[in-house]
């Protein structure tokens, strides 16, 4: 910084005043960090630390709401705000068009009022918006929604979801006096409640503590991120042995073909794979009903395929048969057992030492 003083000394007094004024004007912009994707109009600014209670597993969908988020219902987006004017109320709207302009219209178009919070003259305030409000707040109302039930989670039908921006407005005397907009930055923000289409059919094969699912009739679907298998143990706790010739009924209310899966998956595979192995915690000799659905990047399950059933069973792998047939090997790469020739154990080491020694000798002789 030694160069600063001579430079300042070389300036005229008028130039110095201009420079100081410019620095003062730029200082707030340099010190305040706006969140990605936000714009400010008037006396309201959104702080850089927008948060939510539970983020999706997929970072590229950080600001999207899934069906599971909606059903859980406890998640909320929190907007820290700085207000420069005395404000009565803060309103949070969502829409795909300019909601600041639409708010005071008779027809509010796609804009929806998600939440309203009294500001009480504070200059720092945090507004929380529950995810069910984001999903289910009705259009064309001037009142914020109350506590919404989980039925709002089933109202959406678009597998691509709904993308929008948040409009945060300061309201005095029922008139919006300033606003800020946030669109979620690079990931965007919105909600997606519906999973991708189901594959055509499945075939099951068995394994030990595991079932293997072959997925057939897979069409291209941009919304699909992976396949997920859903397993329901049909064997009652007191055991179940079907009568001779009795046809086994694989149906279960937890897996309804054509309906989305609402239970945790028992295995997943990438969307390019047609073979899916379930988790390895299934019980041998228990009958499992299995169906497959596609999932999107948010984990939303699409409709299920037809249900098929099979039982994991105890199997022999190569190593088990090898050991039972008298094989002595195994136990680890570094295991040393009686009977290993000493020369075999030490040969690589001796060879290495020999090579290193000769190399050093050559280097010495060259020097």
């Amino acid at each position, binding site marked *: 910084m030694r160069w600063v003083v001579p430079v300042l000394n070389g300036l005229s007094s008028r130039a110095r005043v201009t420079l100081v004024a410019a620095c003062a004007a730029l200082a707030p912009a340099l010190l305040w960090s706006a969140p990605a994707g936000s714009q400010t109009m008037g006396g309201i600014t959104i702080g850089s630390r927008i948060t939510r209670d539970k983020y999706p597993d997929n970072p590229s969908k950080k600001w999207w709401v899934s069906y599971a988020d909606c059903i859980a219902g406890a998640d909320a987006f929190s907007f820290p705000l700085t207000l420069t004017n005395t404000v009565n109320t803060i309103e949070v709207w969502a829409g795909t068009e300019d909601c600041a302009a639409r708010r005071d219209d008779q027809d509010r178009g796609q804009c929806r009022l998600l939440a309203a919070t009294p500001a009480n003259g504070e200059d720092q305030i945090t507004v929380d918006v529950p995810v069910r409000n984001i999903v289910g707040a009705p259009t064309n109302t001037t009142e914020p929604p109350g506590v919404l039930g989980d039925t709002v989670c089933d109202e959406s039908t678009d597998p691509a979801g709904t993308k929008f921006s948040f409009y945060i407005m300061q309201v005095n005397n029922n008139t919006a006096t300033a606003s800020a907009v946030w669109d979620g930055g690079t990931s965007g923000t919105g909600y997606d409640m519906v999973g991708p289409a189901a594959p055509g059919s499945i075939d099951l094969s068995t394994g*030990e503590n*595991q079932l293997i699912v072959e997925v057939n009739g897979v069409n291209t679907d941009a919304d699909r991120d992976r396949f997920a298998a859903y397993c329901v143990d049909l064997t009652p706790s007191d055991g179940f042995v079907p009568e001779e010739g009795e046809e086994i009924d694989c149906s279960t209310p937890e897996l309804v073909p054509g309906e989305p899966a609402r239970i945790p998956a028992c295995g997943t595979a990438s969307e390019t794979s047609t073979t899916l192995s379930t988790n390895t915690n299934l019980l041998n000799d228990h009958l499992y009903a299995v169906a497959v659905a596609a999932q999107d990047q948010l984990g939303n399950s699409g409709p299920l395929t037809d249900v098929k059933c099979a039982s994991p*069973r105890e*199997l*022999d792998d190569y190593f*088990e048969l090898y050991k039972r047939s008298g094989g002595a090997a195994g136990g*680890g790469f*570094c295991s040393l057992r009686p009977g290993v020739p000493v020369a075999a154990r030490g040969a690589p080491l001796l*060879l290495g030492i020999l090579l290193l020694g*000769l190399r050093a000798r050559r280097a010495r002789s060259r020097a």
Partner: protein
Amino acid sequence: VTSSFAIRSALALSACVCLIPELAAAQDSSGVDMDAPGRSSVPAPAVAPLPRLQRRNDHSTQTMAFELRFGPYAPHIDNGVGDVTETTSPGSPCVGRKPGACLYGDKTRYQLGFEIDRQFWRAPHVGTLAVGFGWGFTSRSGPNKAAAVTADATPDDTAMDASDEPEVPIGQKGTLNIMPMYAVGVLRVDVLARELGVPLVGYGKLGLGYALWWVTNGRGTARVAAQRSNGEPVDFVGRDSTFGLQAALGAMFLLDALEPSAGAELDTSMGINNSYFFLEWSVSNFDDKHLDVGTNTWVAGLAVEL
């Protein structure tokens, strides 16, 4: 006894090929900078090269060889292992067969690998001597087999008797993975190519083979419950390593002969002195007490000398 002899032979050969450069270095006392362009740190033969090679002025230093190797691989995993018997595995579909043949079948599987040699001496009118390291990988997979039925099991022991269910094929596959490696001395006899213009090089390799292997069963690394001598239960993990003799005989066709100008261009631009297609008969004779994952097989590939 055979294994011990093989290992001693390999060690002796390795010691010989490593000591020879000391002799070579003693001969090279003319004060010529052998690393200079156009010179070879592999000492030249005592006689002038053949006329075809004399016309070329593109020879860079040659100290290395590199091989990209490919070939069928049928490990001798059933050597030293008995048949699956009704006594140990009652009801198993593998009864009367060896475990490897039953699980993995006889379908041909392949290995892919490489070898890198350090050439340190040129024997006049013969060829080059080198030490080399090779690495490869191969695997064999097959569906697991229906388990043996224990003698004391009754239908009531399980929640459902599998025989009463609809027939469902076995889809869970196990895999035997093998990573063969070796350290060998290599003699490449290139006198025909260098002095007589015949684009063929014969070679032999002898040394130590070493292989890592591991078995997966579709759920992870295979394990077998066993007991220590004191009765303490222990899991035997399905992985191990094994040593043995590694030897090979092969022939290389000098590809430069097909397009000499391209060969010269490769030398001047990339330092590749010679490029070859090769075919060899490779023998990996491993100890069957630790699973003989070795094989006797053909290997083909491309090689370059740098």
